[in-house]
């Protein structure tokens, strides 16, 4: 009989393999970001990208003279967009992975819990009623971090965020007295989604042609609204949500044993579940507010990673976060360049590539444990 490997060796091997998968995903993400920065109507060679980046950190460190125009395109147009896509990917995939673990349901994502519908309603609400209710304030401009912002987009983003997060807070209030069981949370989320959907339809119905167009663009989602302000606001939110959930990742694993066993193992299940939902929804609402509706990543990035790296949330969360960012950066870049100069909505590309890749994983047999 072959000699048995010690449990420590077995664990170390497993740990090593998972870290390697995460590392590969991060490397792919970095390559995708460089590719994204290079491609577009003007091709920028990677060497120039690195010079511009280095010079922006320490002026004059690289002697590779880069055309000022190129640097401008890179710095003002492409980089904010790439970072916005990456941050949105991280937040949405993180939200999906955590929600799926908290509710022990593979179909849960920011969409199923009504968050997207609520954020959409929030945006539409401001687009349609903002000019009427707020009058000249809606059309004014504000100054923040030395930048001039148009008040209407600030209000729309704020409204989308508030409603998005509110939907999950309502779920919390509904399930509070019912010991926060998963089925009540999921059903509440679905129903709240419909209620906001009704509000969204009403907004579309009464809106002017111009507002309707704005609403539809928002509903399609995309990185059109990218700016450094967006990145500066989202970065700390994303980082904080990620760190908090990574610190709680072992308890997420414990929840997989069922509520009763988790309680017996010392976890306050109701409190842990609702706190987790509020934390990841905060990040997801913040991202959706800037990007509009972005589906798929939140649901699929965690599933794709789960098939490759397994269900231990300590590894799954960073892997899904990196994969979410990778999927969104690649999709957004392809959406920009496939039919250039026409820009496609990012969803078209992402649903296609992601869907085909997911089907490939299932056919290859890695989806065997999905049930």
């Amino acid at each position, binding site marked *: 009989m072959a000699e048995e490997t010690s449990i420590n060796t077995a664990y170390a091997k497993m740990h090593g393999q998972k870290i390697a998968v995460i590392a590969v995903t991060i490397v792919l993400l970095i390559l995708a970001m460089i590719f994204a920065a290079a491609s577009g109507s003007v091709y920028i060679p990677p060497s120039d990208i690195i010079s511009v980046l280095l010079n922006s950190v320490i002026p004059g460190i690289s002697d590779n003279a880069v055309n000022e125009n190129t640097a401008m395109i890179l710095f003002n147009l492409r980089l904010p967009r790439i970072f916005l896509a990456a941050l949105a990917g991280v937040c949405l995939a993180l939200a999906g992975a955590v929600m799926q673990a908290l509710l022990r349901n593979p179909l849960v994502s920011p969409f199923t819990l009504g968050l997207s519908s609520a954020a959409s309603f929030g945006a539409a609400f401001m687009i349609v009623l903002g000019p009427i209710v707020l009058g000249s304030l809606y059309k004014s401009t504000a100054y923040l971090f030395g930048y001039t912002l148009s008040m209407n987009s600030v209000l729309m983003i704020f409204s989308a965020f508030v409603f998005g997060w509110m939907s999950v807070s309502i779920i919390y209030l509904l399930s509070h007295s019912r010991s926060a069981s998963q089925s009540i949370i999921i059903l509440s989320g679905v129903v709240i989604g419909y209620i906001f959907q009704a509000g969204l339809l009403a907004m579309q119905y009464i809106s002017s042609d111009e507002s309707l167009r704005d609403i539809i663009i928002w509903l399609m989602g995309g990185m059109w609204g990218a700016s450094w302000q967006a990145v500066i606001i989202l970065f700390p939110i994303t980082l904080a949500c990620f760190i908090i959930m990574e610190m709680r990742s072992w308890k997420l694993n414990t929840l*997989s044993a*069922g509520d009763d066993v988790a309680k017996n*193992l*010392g976890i306050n299940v109701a409190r842990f579940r609702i706190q987790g939902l509020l934390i990841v929804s905060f990040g997801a609402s913040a991202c959706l507010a800037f990007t509009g509706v972005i589906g798929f990543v939140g649901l699929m990035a965690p599933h794709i990673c789960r098939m490759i790296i397994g269900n231990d949330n300590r590894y799954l969360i960073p892997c899904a976060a990196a994969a979410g960012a990778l999927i969104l950066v690649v999709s957004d870049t392809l959406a920009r360049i496939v039919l250039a100069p026409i820009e496609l909505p990012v969803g078209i590309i992402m649903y296609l590539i992601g869907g085909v890749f997911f089907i490939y994983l299932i056919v290859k047999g890695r989806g*065997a444990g999905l049930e």
Partner: protein
Amino acid sequence: MKIDVMNLVHNYSTYKVLKDVSFSVDSGEVVSLLGPNGCGKSTTIKIISSLFKPVSGKIKIDGRSIDEIDPVDRAKLIGYVPQYFTYSSYTTVLETVLIGRTPYMSWSVSDEDLAAVDYALRSMNIRDLAERQINELSGGQRQRVFIARAIAQKPVFYLFDEPTSSLDLRYQIDTLTTMRDIIRRDNSGMIVALHDLNLALRYTDKVVLISNGEVYDAGRPADVLTPKAIFEVYGVKAEIIENDKGRFVLAYE
């Protein structure tokens, strides 16, 4: 150590499940809770495991009320094994059993955690399955993994809520024999809800027979499980047969 179950009363809305249940368990003992469906066995097990609070009554461990113990410390004293198991796929046996270490760890896994997992896997005779995926196992093997998870938790008392009811005969006997050995070896204790009176006769040190939310009788299996008691609690006629292998209940009507 000792668990005292004192005058438990509990209702599910208007239905009185527990009217007055008291008994005690010492470490080193395997105690079975017996009684017909709906008599309150499961409820009693869940209350002792602190899954919910009773309407009235107390659980004490060595004289200390269980409500006063911090949930993480309590998890090191009482390990609960449910009737139905929940697990996630894409998870290895090793990872699943490691979940039992939750009261002892927060993110990183220590050598002590791995040693406890190793001990639990060996106790359940599934050490060779450590790196297998949980969803590739048979039902019986999987059941052993979940019991191993409770062993890795290193509790002083194990609470089993009929975890053997869906197993075939061999696995039922295996599981109870293994658990009894562990209880003796580690001087821990066990309360197990059972349906099979013969398993109770053969593998437990003490039985608590519950009828309509009250303790009908408690004591040594051979003393409690009489034809009269079985008739009054379960409503079936039974005969006790004794041979060189032990005592057996034969229910016939």
